């Protein structure tokens, strides 16, 4: 087991390096850099002055160095935990991360909690009553979450609240530790929206895993033997069925921790998603690099933890 963990952790390194390299290259393929954006977005000064200013800003920020040097410099800093200064906010990227991560974390946890409570029972019902109208209803219901893009559902909810109740969720973010009620009043809505959206694949997976497990002999025998045994076995079956589901949820958790931009925009949650979007559109390279790095790290870690959980619970699993 320890060997397995060590091996997986060792694989983090090339993956993270790969991801950061990919982002680095991608950001440089996107046209324009912060210097051009800052200077050209006003269009007040003469073109001669503009050119000079662009050169000045590039020199200040080190953007005139060869690209490879820039990457190595960033990597060197990152390994020391120094992600540099944001080009747009002129403060340490670390501060931005420290601010934004907890909000996305909270939203992700809320979303998953709701999704699990809603989607898994739906999947179980679907499986246990396969091909009954209950199954069909459950599948259609869970699919409906996927059927509309998130922004449509979000805006519908927002407008619905305003129209029906003359009420809008708080527009100002308050941390859970400061005022849990206000905080939840704001976050419950994007959480519901997101949970609705991701419940479809969770339900589908739960259903198919349950179906597989239910077929096994021990379940058939238990069923034949009687009620009490059936209950015990169902619980056992459920536990086995849920393992892949847990992996899947972990995968989703890793994704959600990166923040869902659209939900944050509509419900005014200042999380990782909007910060990253803003950083990308302003070509704030240090912030983009750091955020992607953190998101990738979180994603990989969550997946590892879940896989470990899987292995610990079910010792039959062998790892290649």
């Amino acid at each position, binding site marked *: 087991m320890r060997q397995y963990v060590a091996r997986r952790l060792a694989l983090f390194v090339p993956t993270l390096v790969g991801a950061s390299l990919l982002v680095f290259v991608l950001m440089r393929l996107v046209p324009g850099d912060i210097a051009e954006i800052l200077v050209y977005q006003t269009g007040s000064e003469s073109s001669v002055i503009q050119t000079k200013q662009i050169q000045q800003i590039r020199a200040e920020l080190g953007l005139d160095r060869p690209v490879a040097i820039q990457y190595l410099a960033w990597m060197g800093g990152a390994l020391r935990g120094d992600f540099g200064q944001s080009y747009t906010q002129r403060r340490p990227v670390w501060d931005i991360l420290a601010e934004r991560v907890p909000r996305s974390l909270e939203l992700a946890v809320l979303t998953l909690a709701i999704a699990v409570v809603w989607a898994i029972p739906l999947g179980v019902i679907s499986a246990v009553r396969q091909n009954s109208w209950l199954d069909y209803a459950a*599948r259609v219901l869970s699919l409906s979450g996927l059927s509309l893009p998130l922004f449509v559902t979000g805006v519908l909810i927002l407008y619905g609240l305003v129209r029906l109740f003359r009420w809008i969720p708080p527009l100002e973010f308050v941390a859970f530790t400061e005022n849990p009620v206000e905080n939840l009043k704001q976050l419950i809505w994007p959480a519901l929206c997101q949970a609705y959206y991701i419940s479809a694949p969770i339900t589908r997976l739960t259903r198919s895993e349950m179906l597989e497990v239910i077929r096994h002999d021990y379940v*058939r025998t238990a069923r034949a033997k009687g009620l009490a045994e059936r209950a015990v076995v169902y619980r056992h079956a459920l536990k086995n069925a849920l393992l892949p589901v847990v992996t899947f949820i972990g995968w989703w958790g890793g994704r959600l921790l990166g923040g869902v931009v659209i939900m944050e925009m509509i419900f005014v949650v200042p999380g990782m998603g909007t910060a990253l979007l803003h950083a*990308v559109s302003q070509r704030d390279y240090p912030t983009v690099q750091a955020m992607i790095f953190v998101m990738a790290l979180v994603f990989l870690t969550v997946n590892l933890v879940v896989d470990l959980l899987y292995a610990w619970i079910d010792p039959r699993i062998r790892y290649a």
Partner: protein
Amino acid sequence: MLAALGRFVVRQPLGAAGALVVLALVAVAVLAPRLAPHGPKETGFAPYVAPSAEFPMGTDQVGRDVLSRVIWGARLSLYVGLASVVLGITLGSLWGVATAYFGGAADAGSQRVVDSLMALPPIILALSLMAALGQSVTNVILALTILLTPTAARTVRSVALGVAAAPYVEAARATGGSNWRIIRRHVIPNCMASYIVLMTTNVSYAIVVEASLSFLGAGAPPDEPSWGGMLTAGVQALETAPWMVFFPGLAISLAVFGLNLLGDSIRDLTDPRLRGGLG
């Protein structure tokens, strides 16, 4: 043939409904030029007209017929969805199969690339790609393809790993069969079921992701009749012109439902683990 179809409808009513919807969608997409009363970019009508006899789905903010755009939108969405999925899933699947079969350092290396890609948040990846490539329908397809390839590669690889380890494949290798022939005759057919299911679910995913990209200003060009673009414009005037959201929304929902129900049913039928219930 008809009997088989009849059995399908009875055993998988949801799937049959899904298939019907998908067929209708394809029909609308193919027949768009003849079905749509107007061109997709044709302006000149009064804006924000409510659904009426002349405009059954109303007009939008620039004065275009929503019905025509929804019909042409079927063609565009299907085109974008299918193209990106076919390209992405196929590329990914081939990648997964090849690395699984050949194994070794190439497999390990390519897995790192796949993992790196998958660790990136998809919307931001798509956004950056669109910004780098420029906004056009072709580039939306390209961006979506890049999004879909890694997932397919990983999924198919794990399936292919299982197949590659199977005894009959070992036997075929032992008797000197060429790699390509073995892949073609044994490995690929056994991955087909997951391939088909991946296709159907991802076409609907592609359609919905394109819509989100439109909302962020990075989808297909705004004059193209993409359902996502229509929804983006529609939510700006939700109370004034709810038909601008209702009809494209309905269209997307139907597409998603149809594709997913069909895919689910195919999976139910082809995956031996899922056949039959409690008896």
